[in-house]
């Protein structure tokens, strides 16, 4: 059974529910409640990430972003979500109906499952499985199926080209993501996410502990992470200037919203993995406020926000790469670099050259 750590409100709910339901029913109800809470929180968070991106883009481009709907445009994406929900679900005549309708669910489901393993604070974690990082990479690989099926099932040449490009890109960069995370696991000795944070609480953040290989691993991870989520400078999949809109050309309304939201939640996931593994998760710098438990999620969100800011800066500054340049970068440069980095880190751990206090 799942191991749901108890926090004060969860204790009250647990006690109240076990008052009038048998044990299994209590567990199932609690699972449903947590799922609904996550869904609600992250749907709204995804919407606000979109608004944040629009505001940052406007700031870089010397203009104001959305500022009509609510103060500073706060209700803009809610208005957009309402619009998307009420749109007509179009589709092409010759599209493969089953595949076309099935495709949008894969990325969003994969993203939401992957969200469940993150520790937001010492006792706020939905699923503390002991193969944490392995589970994460495995589940986020499911999302690519949705892209391929969506592109093929749309019966549109442009969508097919976009889907093929995306498929090959995501599959290639998963290697780099996995290997750079593996480099950090060498320092902690455990795949479980809460264990990783324990190691960082006693010894300092992992990026400081394994200095040179960890910094190299972080840079490789950022590059591969932006490529995984099909964001610029690797966004030739949805290159608006070349192909219209790539694999989600033929989708409209709620199905398009699934693809769109899945991209932003993926960005959140990549940033959250980076904070957990490299920057200490919910720990505060130098351990100043570790005891105060309601500050811990605040530190987590702040670090994730900074890394998301970095990813957004990439998008609005750099031009995009061509597909053969993307693949050359991965297979000829990042992968050998990654493998050498692992060896370097292993040697450093064996000789005890890591910095820790």
């Amino acid at each position, binding site marked *: 059974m799942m191991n749901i750590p108890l926090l004060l409100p969860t204790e009250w709910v647990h006690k109240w529910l076990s008052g009038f339901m048998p044990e299994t029913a209590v567990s199932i109800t609690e699972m449903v409640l947590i799922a609904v809470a996550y869904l609600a929180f992250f749907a709204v968070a995804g919407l606000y990430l979109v608004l944040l991106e629009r505001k940052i*883009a406007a700031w*870089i*481009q*010397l*203009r104001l972003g959305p500022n009509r709907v609510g103060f500073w445009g706060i209700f803009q994406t809610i208005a957009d979500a309402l619009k998307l929900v009420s749109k007509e679900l179009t589709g092409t005549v010759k599209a493969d109906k089953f595949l076309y309708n099935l495709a949008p669910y894969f990325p969003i489901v994969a993203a939401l499952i992957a969200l469940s393993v993150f520790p937001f604070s010492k006792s706020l974690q939905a699923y503390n499985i002991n193969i944490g990082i392995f589970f994460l990479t495995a589940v986020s690989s499911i999302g690519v199926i949705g892209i391929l099926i969506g592109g093929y099932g749309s019966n549109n*040449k*442009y969508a097919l*080209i976009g889907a093929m490009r995306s498929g090959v890109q995501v599959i290639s960069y998963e290697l780099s993501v996995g290997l750079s995370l593996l480099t950090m696991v060498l320092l902690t000795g455990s795949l479980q996410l809460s264990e990783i944070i324990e190691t960082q609480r006693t010894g300092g953040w992992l990026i400081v502990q394994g200095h040179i290989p960890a910094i190299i691993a972080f840079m490789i991870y950022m590059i591969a992470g932006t490529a995984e989520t099909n964001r*610029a*400078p690797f*966004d*030739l999949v949805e*290159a*608006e*200037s*070349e192909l*219209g809109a790539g694999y989600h050309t033929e989708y409209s309304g709620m199905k398009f919203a699934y693809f769109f939201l899945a991209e932003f939640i993926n960005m959140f996931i990549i940033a959250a993995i980076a904070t957990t593994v490299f920057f200490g998760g919910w720990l505060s710098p130098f351990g100043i406020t570790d005891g105060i438990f309601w500050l811990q999620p605040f530190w987590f969100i702040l670090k994730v926000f900074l890394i998301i800011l970095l990813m957004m800066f990439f*998008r*609005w*500054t*750099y*031009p*995009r*790469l*061509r*597909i*053969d*340049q993307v693949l050359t970068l991965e297979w000829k440069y990042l992968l050998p670099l990654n493998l050498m980095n692992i060896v370097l880190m292993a040697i450093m751990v064996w000789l005890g050259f890591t910095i820790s206090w």
Partner: protein
Amino acid sequence: MAQETIVKDPFKTEEYMINMGPQHPATHGVLRLLLTIDGEIIKKVEPDLGFIHRSIEKMCERDSYQQIVHLTDRMDYLSSHINNEAVCLAVENALEIEVPDRVKVIRTIIDELTRIASHTLWWGVMGMDLGALTTYFYGFRDRELINDIFEETCGARLTMNYNIPGGLMFDIHPNFVQRTKDFVKHFKTKLPEYDQLLTGNIIFQKRMKGVGVLTKEDAISFGVSGPVARGSGVASDIRKIHPYSAFDRVEFNEILFTEGDSFARYNVRIKEMWESLSIIEQLIDNIPEGDYKVPTKAVIKLPKGEFYQRVETARGELGVYIYSDGKKNPYRVKFRSPGFSNLSALNHMAVGSKIGDLVAMMATLDLVVPDIDR
């Protein structure tokens, strides 16, 4: 026999024809390209024109000479002043009118401002095509300053009908000189910023170097002109070969690069902006006094004969060929547009490269489709 089955070759491949259609974010205007591709490699590019054909040449046969001037600035709307100047110069040379010095200098200054405006728009859109979406806004911010200067003097921001045969339509606004000087000072701080943002970027360079190579012999054979030809080593600046207006009394360099790839064409245009700034600086302080136009008859009739006038627009050589038989309407007018010849080189450059390269090539060719279709 019925037992005989014809088995198709299981590895037979067919060509995949894609339409980069008239409405498309990357083609600047309504240009339809039929691409035959094999995976990602392009086999053939065939342009399909005519979506914005407005029969300007036929209309010129029924209009008077003053009315033709106003049709030309809709052709290549980004260098509209230069287009107007071409027809006005043709008519003035045919009638052998000598315009005052003031007119020549003002025409040259506004020519160069138009060229800078066209090149900043090209730079902004080029970044946007390649994925750096911010450059669009930076380019337009500077173009707005030039448009404001034009609006004060000529009355319009895009299609400025400021030239007439015989001079200018009205005199320049009193603020013109000061605002142009302020603009030149402001723009000199911005051009190095643009260089830093786009030219030095390694991703950008890798997408442009070696892409769309046009050798010098091919460039001459395809009849290209303007920055496309100068990027391939053909020295074809009309301002130097057949000078007109005040270009024979300013000093400026003609930019030549030899490689012929997209990066060379890009560099030619960036350096041309610097040269335009230096031309404006040489002329802006000494605008001679005098009349702003020479009075012509109300009904202009050119003598019998053929007249050819060429100017250097931001895209290349625009030629105006007027065949007149003495009446008040021309018998035939032909506009030799630079985009038409530049487009014919696209198929030759694009065979064997990828779709992403095609977008980069079209961005450096700087096609404006109303210019091609007329």
